[in-house]
């Protein structure tokens, strides 16, 4: 049977007559290619323009009592703040957390997908998946989409049989095991505060305050971070949300406004 390949022909406007005079009315539709000597460079620049720049601050660190995970809650589109109340710490399951940096849709979808895979692993193997395994599943998926425009910079934090586990996974396919990470445009500021205040044997409250302060300082200096600083703790029983404070309120908590002392008041002098 001869296949009908007419759909693959280049689209042409219907020609009423084969007059040479009508040639001008039936050009094949096409788009213009930019007049650029360096077309590949132009393509790269176009991709860069579309690629979101991971405007956010997230951090996570392991300490003696477990793992502390914290993030801001601002979503920005260029200079426009599209939301101050984004949930950037994603609850994959009761003992695994993921953080969101980069494309919100990408992070939310793939974390949800990871949650499904973790549950299937549990059902098939009658035991929870390890943090190593979960992060590797996500990293393999992201690697297979490499170069297709996914933007994900996430940390997978959890508690499994071997204790606390923290991995950084990104859309370039990278995966790193570590004890302290911060991801996003505000991460340099967060690292400054986090690295200088970090001690292995902090109690939980001190670690939470360190995480909160690091996020606050990042939101103070980075325009793409702000909103609410959420802090989660991951322990042997799973994760627990510790606090969610508006960073503006935190600012006035840390740096209260002092009343200026007035030495002399100007008084009207009667003539």
């Amino acid at each position: 049977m001869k296949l009908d390949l007419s759909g693959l022909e280049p689209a042409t406007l219907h020609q009423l007559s084969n007059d040479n005079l009508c040639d001008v009315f039936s050009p094949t539709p096409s788009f213009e290619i930019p007049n650029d000597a360096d077309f590949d460079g132009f393509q790269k620049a176009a991709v860069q323009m579309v690629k979101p720049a991971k405007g956010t601050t997230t951090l996570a660190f392991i300490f003696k009592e477990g793992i502390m995970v914290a993030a801001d809650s601002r979503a920005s589109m260029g200079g426009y703040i599209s939301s101050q109340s984004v949930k950037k710490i994603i609850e994959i399951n009761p003992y695994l957390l993921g953080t969101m940096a980069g494309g919100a849709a990408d992070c939310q979808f793939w974390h949800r997908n990871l949650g499904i895979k973790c549950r299937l692993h549990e059902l098939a193997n009658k035991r929870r998946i390890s943090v190593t395994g979960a992060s590797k599943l996500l990293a393999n998926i992201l690697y297979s989409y490499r170069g297709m425009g996914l933007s994900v910079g996430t940390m997978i934090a959890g508690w499994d049989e071997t204790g606390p586990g923290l991995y950084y996974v990104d859309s370039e396919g990278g995966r790193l095991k570590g004890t302290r990470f911060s991801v996003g445009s505000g991460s340099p500021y967060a690292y400054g505060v986090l690295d200088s205040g970090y001690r292995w044997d902090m109690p939980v409250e001190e670690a939470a305050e360190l995480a909160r302060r690091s996020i606050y300082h990042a939101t103070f200096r980075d325009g793409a971070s702000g909103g609410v600083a959420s802090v989660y703790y991951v322990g042997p029983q799973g994760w627990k949300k510790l606090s969610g404070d508006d960073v503006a309120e935190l600012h006035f908590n840390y740096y209260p406004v002092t009343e200026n002392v007035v030495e002399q008041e100007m008084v009207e002098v009667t003539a």
Partner: protein
Amino acid sequence: MARYDRAITVFSPDGHLFQVEYALEAVRKGNAAVGVRGTDNIVLAVERKSTAKLEDSRTVRKIVNLDNHIALACAGLKADARVLINKARIECQSHRLTVEDPVTVEYITRYIAGLQQKYTQSGGVRPFGLSTLIVGFDPYTGAPSLYQTDPSGTFSAWKANATGRNSNSIRDFLEKNYKETAGHETIKLAARALLEVVESKGNNIEIAVMTRDKGLRQLEESDVEAIVAEVEAEKAAAEAAKKAPTPRD
């Protein structure tokens, strides 16, 4: 279009899959294999049909490694075994690569059984003609396990089991005489079970022991002979004790 309707496994009117049952027949004709689980080790003992004089017996290994902590023995078509073992070995490594953890014994057994089942429900292929005994230690809990799969694709865990020739007699013996053992006692129990159906002379038995720390250890022929001699001596002593007149006070 390629026609795949030759040799598919189809149901008979009374609900049997004859190809699978014929595969089980092939297993019943294969060499006997016994597996016994101890508290700190698992022993596999396999009947070895006497090798020809010119044959290098070291190349005819019946008990193989699937990974550092998992071993397999089988009864049935040895060529089918080779294919299944290769696929299982690849899956063990692939699992290590994707989740950075070694497989559990249950996982790889489920994989092998799944493969065997797939071949009972595909066009143009016949089922694998072998039953396997899979042993190993759980990499997390350290618990020893023994699993068996068969050509239909079912699998289950056992304390001790046998497959291949005369497996029913061996299993009867094990049911009567199994108890929790460890170390050397487990090896002797496995050897005794196999010797129920296999002649003890002439290098007929291959024994391998899986331990948590050292992995799979194939016993040398001299060690096997020593164990067989020990078992035979114990059997003789038991026989003599039975025959001896009971002392009266």
